[in-house]
C-alpha cells in the first residue's frame, strides 16, 4: 500500500509537488518526475501520477513536481530557464534530504523534462539514473542514409511531390522562414558538453538509463541503438536501454501507448531497483 503526501520546496516553500512512497522507504531510491513542457506535474494525461504510483508500488520514492513557472509553482522572472531549473533542483534536493537523507536519485522527463534531466545529471553526482522520453540524440554515420531511404521509399512522398516542390519554392521565394523550423526550437536542449558530461558520468557511476523515442524524434533519431552508438562513449551500452516507437506521439495521447509506456518503465525500474539501491549517494 503506497502513501502520498504534499512536497514543498524553494525560497518560500512555494514550489509544489506530490510524493508517492512505498510502505517501506528504507534504502529506496528517489525518482523525480519533472514537468513535460508547459504541462503541470500530473500530466500529460495523468501519466506522471500513474507512473509515480507504479514506481512507489515497486519500491521507489516518486516525486512529481512543478518546476518554477509551471503548474502550481510561481515563476521566477529574472533567470534563464537553465538557472531557474538548477536552483529548483538544489532546493528540491535539500527538501528531499530533510525527509529521507541522501539517496540515489533518478530523473524522469519527457521533452523539456528530458533536456532538464540531462543538464542536471551533467552537474550532479547524486543522479544515478535517467528515464528519458524523446531526448535529443546525436546522428550516427548511417542516419542520413536511412533518412534518405525512408523518404525515397515513401509512396506518400512521391504522390505528393508536386505539393512538396511548390511549398519549397514558395518558402525560397518569399524569403521567410517558418516561425519554428523544428520542434527543437521550443526547447532549451542540452549542449554537447552537457551530453558528454552526463553520460560519461553515468558510466563512471554505473548508473542506468532508459531512453524512449517516438515519432517526434524521427528527424534526428531513426534507428534503435542510434543514441548509444552516436554518443560513442565506452561503457555506455551496458547501462542504457533504448526503445523506439515511431508510431507513438510525443505526448502519448493514446491510452494504449501510455499503458505500454508505463509497463515498459515499470519493467525497467523493477529490473534495476536492487542495483540502484547499492549505489552510494554523493
Amino acid at each position, binding site marked *: 500500500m503506497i502513501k502520498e503526501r504534499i512536497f514543498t520546496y524553494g525560497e518560500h516553500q512555494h514550489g509544489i509537488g506530490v510524493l508517492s512512497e512505498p510502505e517501506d522507504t528504507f534504502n529506496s531510491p528517489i525518482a523525480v518526475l519533472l514537468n513535460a513542457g508547459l504541462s503541470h506535474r*500530473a500530466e500529460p494525461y495523468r501519466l506522471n501520477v500513474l507512473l509515480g504510483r507504479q514506481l512507489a508500488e515497486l519500491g521507489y520514492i516518486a516525486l512529481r513536481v512543478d518546476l518554477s513557472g509551471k503548474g502550481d509553482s510561481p515563476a521566477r522572472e529574472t533567470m534563464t530557464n537553465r538557472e531557474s531549473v538548477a536552483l529548483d533542483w538544489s532546493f528540491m534536493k535539500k527538501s528531499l534530504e530533510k525527509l529521507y537523507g541522501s539517496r540515489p536519485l533518478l530523473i524522469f522527463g519527457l521533452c523539456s523534462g528530458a533536456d532538464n534531466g540531462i543538464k542536471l545529471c551533467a552537474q550532479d553526482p547524486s543522479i544515478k539514473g535517467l528515464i528519458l522520453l524523446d531526448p535529443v540524440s546525436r546522428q550516427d554515420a548511417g542516419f542520413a542514409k536511412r533518412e534518405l531511404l525512408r523518404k525515397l521509399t515513401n509512396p506518400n512522398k512521391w504522390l505528393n511531390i508536386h505539393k512538396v516542390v511548390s511549398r519549397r519554392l514558395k518558402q525560397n521565394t518569399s524569403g521567410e522562414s517558418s516561425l519554428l523550423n523544428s520542434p527543437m526550437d521550443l526547447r532549451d536542449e542540452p549542449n554537447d558538453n552537457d551530453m558528454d558530461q552526463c553520460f560519461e558520468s553515468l558510466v563512471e557511476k554505473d548508473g542506468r538509463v532508459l531512453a524512449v523515442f517516438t515519432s517526434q524524434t524521427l528527424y534526428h533519431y531513426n534507428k534503435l541503438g542510434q543514441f548509444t552508438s552516436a554518443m560513442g562513449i565506452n561503457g555506455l551500452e551496458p547501462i542504457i536501454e533504448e526503445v523506439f516507437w515511431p508510431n507513438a506521439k510525443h505526448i502519448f495521447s493514446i491510452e494504449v501507448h501510455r499503458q505500454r509506456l508505463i509497463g515498459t518503465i515499470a519493467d525497467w525500474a523493477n529490473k534495476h531497483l536492487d542495483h540502484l539501491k547499492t549505489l552510494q549517494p554523493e
Partner: protein
Amino acid sequence: MIEPFFFDDSRLFGCYSSAMDPNAEKVVVVCPPLFDEYRRTYRALSELSVAISERGNHAFRFDYYGTAESQGLLSEATTEGWLSDIEKAIDEAIAVSGANHVVLLGVRFGATLAAQINHASVKDFLFWDPVLSGERYVEWLNEIDAILRQRHQSAARENNVPFENIEYRNFDLPPELVTGMRELAIPESTLNNPGLCFTVSTDPEFCPNSGLSNCAYPGLSYDWPYYHDGVITQKPVLEALLDRVFV
C-alpha cells in the same frame, strides 16, 4: 500562496488560495474540465485562483476522484461520485476559508457537473465555455478520438512506418461513466437566470444565439476539440471571469 492538501480521508486533492483580505466572505470553488481540457487549462486556473486571492476572495480547486492528483482510477469513476466530490469540495472550501458565500466556477463539463449542485452556500454559478449537453459532449470526445486516429494515420503515412491497428482512444472511459455523462445537461433555469449564473464563452456565436443576457464573449475564440495539443492561458477569458467574481 497556494496550499495543496488531500481531503475527504485523503481521497481527493485540493489547492486552497487564501484571500488577502481577512474579511473575505466569498470563496470560489473551481470545478475543472475533464481529460485533455484539464491539462490545457491547469495553469490558467491556477493563475486565476491566485488572482482571485490577491484581489480579495478565497479560491479552492480540486480534482475529481480518479483524475489528476486525486486517488483512484478513471475506470472507477462515476458522475454520481463526481457530484458528491463537488459537494465535499464545497464543504472543505467553506471549512478552510471560513467564507459562507460560494461561487461555483465550472469549466466545460465541470460547468455541467456544477449546474447539478444544490447546496445552500452556493449563491452564484460562473461558467467558462459550459457544455450544455452531456450527449453532445460525449460526441465531441468521440470526435477527438477520431481526430487522434486520423493524426496517427497521417503521421504513419508521412513517416513511412506501418500504421498500428489499436484502439485510438485518448482515454478509455468506463461505460457507466459515459452513460452518466450523456444524461447530464445544464438546466435552462440555471443558465438563463441572471441573478444566479453568468457565462463566459469563447464561441462568438454562443451569446447571441442563446439569447442570454447574462453572457459575455471576451473577444477571443477557441475551438476546444480541435486544439487538442498545447497548454492555454487565455488572459481575456481569465480577466472576464475575474471581473464577474468581483461584481
